[in-house]
């Protein structure tokens, strides 16, 4: 089926809000190229479970597309219309299984050497969309905080090397009660600028005590979900005919209830957490990867005003089959390696934050937990410099936002 043949009843299996949105935009959807549309539907079908920022972005995108003249459509989508797809892709159920279509389309684009053309078309589309749908002004400057190095007693190699050129390196901060002060500052911000899913705390281990006004995701608290997922994966791998592409498709279709989250406290957050494990690579086995990827996805999707990510020691490297097995008790940890992972994770946190609206005003703090080294990137602070000020972490945050 081609997009031009789309009818409203094709969306009957969509969740209510997604269906309503799809039907309301049917005429516009019919005009889109097939190589593009399932990617859009892949997002739209999840509309009922999306964060507010994502819903707003989706609404803006659909409104923008609906307003395009035929000439503008050609201009925006010319590159996509030139991509050729296989008959099998055209005949697949891309309306109800857009995720699977996108998987198969990727393989098709690579194998037919069209991936660069698709990438160019997608980049152009992204640029045009961004220009056409400017983000709303933020209620407050965005703040990112990365806490790294839990469990490391001493470290004599330089930290924050990638970030130092962008901010001020503090070498004598007072580490006492550092995490408490950071979380207190988070709570203050969250209460002053309340927003659903606007203030996040991601922990790669057991979360510290924190205010319920923060959206919290932690590796330790999701252990039952991880174990259920690993068990599912082991079973899948053992099935005849199973390959990586098939496994990925099956993983993508997992819902919170499939992994033991039977009583959803928050369907949106539950789905987000499941996707961290089913879409992320390494998130199931290394807590540092989980923390980095969860922070990235929270920024990309929820676009929070505040996000604190605290890295914890991950388990040591082992053969993959062993890492994927369930029921390991107290695995050996690698604090030093985890610090290196987290140092890079903090850099990626900052990069991802800078990709969002308001980046020129945003602030970022990285801290070596329990130690006196911190790094602050803020528009009011000099770049590439050092400070010997003996301030505590609460004062560091205040300085970053000053």
């Amino acid at each position, binding site marked *: 089926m081609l997009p031009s043949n789309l009818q409203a009843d094709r969306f009957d299996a969509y969740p209510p809000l997604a269906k309503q949105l799809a039907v309301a935009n049917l005429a516009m959807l019919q005009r889109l190229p097939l190589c593009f549309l399932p990617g859009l539907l*892949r997002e739209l079908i999840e509309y009922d479970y999306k964060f507010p920022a994502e819903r707003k972005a989706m609404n803006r995108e659909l409104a923008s597309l609906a307003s395009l003249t035929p000439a503008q459509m050609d201009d925006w989508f010319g590159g996509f219309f030139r991509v050729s797809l296989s008959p099998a892709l055209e005949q697949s159920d891309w309306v109800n299984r857009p995720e699977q279509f996108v998987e198969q389309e990727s393989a098709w684009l690579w194998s037919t050497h069209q991936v660069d053309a698709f990438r160019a078309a997608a980049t152009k589309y992204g640029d045009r969309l961004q220009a056409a749908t400017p983000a709303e002004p933020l209620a407050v400057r965005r703040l990112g905080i990365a806490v790294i190095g839990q469990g490391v007693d001493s470290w004599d190699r330089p930290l924050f090397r990638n970030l130092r050129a962008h901010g001020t390196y503090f070498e004598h901060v007072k580490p006492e009660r550092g995490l408490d002060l950071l979380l207190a500052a988070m709570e203050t911000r969250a209460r002053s600028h309340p927003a659903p899913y606007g203030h996040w705390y991601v922990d790669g281990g057991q979360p510290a005590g924190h205010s319920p006004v923060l959206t919290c995701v932690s590796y330790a608290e999701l252990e039952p979900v991880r174990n259920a997922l690993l068990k599912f994966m082991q079973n899948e791998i053992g099935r005849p005919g199973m390959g990586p592409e098939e496994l990925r498709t099956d993983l993508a279709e997992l819902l919170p209830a499939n992994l033991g989250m039977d009583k959803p406290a928050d369907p949106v957050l539950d789905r987000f957490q499941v996707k961290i494990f089913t879409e992320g690579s390494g998130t199931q086995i290394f807590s540092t990867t989980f923390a980095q990827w969860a922070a990235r996805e929270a920024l990309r999707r929820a676009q929070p005003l505040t996000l604190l990510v605290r890295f914890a020691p991950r388990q040591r490297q082992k053969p993959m089959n062993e890492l994927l097995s369930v029921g390991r008790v107290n695995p050996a940890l690698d604090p030093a390696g985890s610090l290196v992972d987290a140092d890079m*994770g903090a850099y990626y946190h900052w990069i991802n934050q800078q990709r*969002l609206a308001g980046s020129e005003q945003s602030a970022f703090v990285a801290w070596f937990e329990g130690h006196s080294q911190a790094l602050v990137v803020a528009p009011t602070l000099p770049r590439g410099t050092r400070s010997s000020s003996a301030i505590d972490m609460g004062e560091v945050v205040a300085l970053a936002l000053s």
Partner: protein
Amino acid sequence: MFDSLTCEAAARDGAMRRASAPGDAVARLVRSRREFLRAAAGVAAGTAFLGPSPLVRAEPARRKRKVIVITFGGGARDQETFSPEGQENIPHLLGELAPQSSFFTHVSNQGILGHYVATASLATGVYETLNNFAAVPPDHPTVFEYFRKDLKRPSSDAWVVAPSNGFNRIGESDCRSYGQGLGARVVLPKHLLSAAASGPDTDYAHLLRDNYESPLYTPQLGGGEFELQQLETILKLSVDDFKAHAMTLSSPDELSVYIARRLMQEESPSLLWITMHDIDVAHSGAYSLYIEGIQRTDRLCAELWKAVQGEPEYAGNTTMLILPDFGRDSDEDAGGNGFQHHRTGDAASRTTWMMALGAGVRQGVVYNQQVQSIDLVPTIGAMLGFSPTESQGRAIPELV
């Protein structure tokens, strides 16, 4: 799993900013490699050396000529290697090998960025489109088949040492005019060790790590795989000696290099292809393990080159070619996740480098012009004197 996020990543990251134009990124990568090398290793620009290459072209010399290819399954980016902050990770490549080498700063891979299919493309000189995760042979004749058929070489003269089970079909294609019986012998050291240890054994667990690109799946074996009983007849190693030595090693790539050295001693193949894979642990997202992989690969490349100098069959008549199969995603591309993958198809993931050392190679020279991954096979053909008729690449003039 290598490609599955491409579409959505490219199309759906509207909230995040875009990277600079691809052409700019390539130019930046090439320029930075050249400048870093010049500063760190004191090498010269290749344009100063436009005369013929100092190759030994006489037929008797060609008959003795040997070529060793080392590929990395899992590229390493400039910021972790050739840039100032990365140079601490590659002291051997930079300090020992680069000054002796012709270094190509701009090797472009226009094919599929999955390790098996990309290595198959390197080995055939054609951008293959086979399933990256299936144990299938390449669609086009491999360098080993051209070499053996054209030059009438025995099977003992072409070997592949590969890291993961998916590579067991890399030795020969299923082309009718080449194919069965004309390819390379393939050793999968991990599989060999697993067989020697009679199944999973925790003593060797660190050497039996799985395929990082798709840690969830291992295809079934098939094809001309090196058998356990041939340890003794070909490598002159008892199972006990093999197991005992394996205990002294720390990674799968170390095991591969050990096997490669035994092959050099016992079989002295004229064409030896080694694919390393430790770096690809980056897919797990653990940056420290990725860095350790780079440092180990750097050391192992130097060890192999040293071994070449110490083997009478190889010293003085061997050309060694070192190249990653492709790069990794840049930090700047919003569709990727930095070092972790090679999914975006951005300039950093498609652009890599090559180092050529030894017989017929000018020393301490940097070439900035673009060459392609598929140029490797015709280049080896010109070195050894065979004709890769189906390859779509071109011999690199500076090496032939």
